[in-house]
């Protein structure tokens, strides 16, 4: 977008008042990222007119509206709910955001997970419900924290004969993803992983599709079949 420097205050005002069209507004927004003077002019214009908004008689805000907002919040980049793996694993796609959004479905399944965990004698420290990219529940991991974890497959996952499913967890960003073991065939399995820090809330668990015998690098290399965050049984 071309403009004279001297026109910046005027452009900023017209943008703030909403007097320009949608496409031009988008151009100005893009330009604001580059042009500090334009950014400052828009900021100054907003501050000039802001009292017209802050003196408005408030409407009654309700809890239902908040709930609609809350269920639609995507996870923030850099928070435990959207941990990115190191670059060795370049199978991250935006679709996982969608998967993460299906937390509701996951929590329903978590309840199922809790029910079966309660009927067992040993108590898992955490349970993670793993969902695929479409948000469908695929498996539940129970981590007992004593180098033992159990994975229960809750869907039929197709595994080519020369491939295997490998279960991973991310105890911390520094440690990176650690293998808990392979799932032979498509059965539920008891996993005996390495000694790890005690599993915590929101720890990431995932299943990737790896070559038979497991990932050659010791890090996930194949596509993610399902993943989810741990929760402590309450």
């Amino acid at each position: 977008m071309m403009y004279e420097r001297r026109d910046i205050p005027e452009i900023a005002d017209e943008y703030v008042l909403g007097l320009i069209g949608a496409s031009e507004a988008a151009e100005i927004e893009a330009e604001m990222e580059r042009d500090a003077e334009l950014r400052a002019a828009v900021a100054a214009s907003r501050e000039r007119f802001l009292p017209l908004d802050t003196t408005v008689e408030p409407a009654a805000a309700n809890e239902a509206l908040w709930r609609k907002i809350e269920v639609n919040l995507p996870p923030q980049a850099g928070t435990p709910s959207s941990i990115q793996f190191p670059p060795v694993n370049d199978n991250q796609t935006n679709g996982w955001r969608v998967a993460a959004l299906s937390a509701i479905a996951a929590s329903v399944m978590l309840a199922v997970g809790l029910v079966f965990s309660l009927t067992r004698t040993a108590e898992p420290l955490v349970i993670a419900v793993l969902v695929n990219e479409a948000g469908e529940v695929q498996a539940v991991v129970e981590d007992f924290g004593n180098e033992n974890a159990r994975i229960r497959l809750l869907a039929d996952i197709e595994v080519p004969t020369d491939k295997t499913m490998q279960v991973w967890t991310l105890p911390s960003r520094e440690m990176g993803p650690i293998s808990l073991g392979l799932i032979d065939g498509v059965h539920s399995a008891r996993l005996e992983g390495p000694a790890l820090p005690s599993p915590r809330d929101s720890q990431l668990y995932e299943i990737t599709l790896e070559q038979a015998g497991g990932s050659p690098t010791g890090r996930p290399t194949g596509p993610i079949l399902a993943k989810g965050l741990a929760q402590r049984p309450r």
Partner: protein
Amino acid sequence: MLVDVRVNDLDKALAACAKGDRMALRSIYDREAGRLIALAERIVQRRELAEEVVQEAFIRIWTHAHQYSPDRGSAHGWIYAIVRNRALNLLRDGKREYTVEDVEALRESEQVDEIMATWQKLDRNSRLYECLAALDETKRRGILMAYVGGYSHGEIAGRLRIPLGTAKSWIRRALSALRGCMA
């Protein structure tokens, strides 16, 4: 200094949102949602649409919180601008489910009065109040119709019964006068 403290709180809340703290977004909602719904409703003219605007705006506040920095103005202004922009976009998309007659009738009667009342509600000692007062009636009306009601140049020209080009140049001059007055 109450105002400064509150502005700082919003700053902190945005920083916490960027880190994934939902309670911080909730605190912004608790404090500002009522006013934000009302300001969106002034533009889109219907409560359900205003709530839709605020819902989308809060999700945008959440996803863009990391972009906020003081060189974009106050956190207060930044949040309000997101709501204003969503409301204006809704108008531009023509999503209002009114018939043309409804819009005309509503805009003619209540909305213009409401818009002019906005100026009257400003603190009488504020620069904005004084500087708007210094404009002549028609120019003041034009500015308020644009900012408060989200009117386009064309709508303003129609309401003020002046040619489009005249409306544009009046508003430009009025904005320039306001900048000079408030500097």
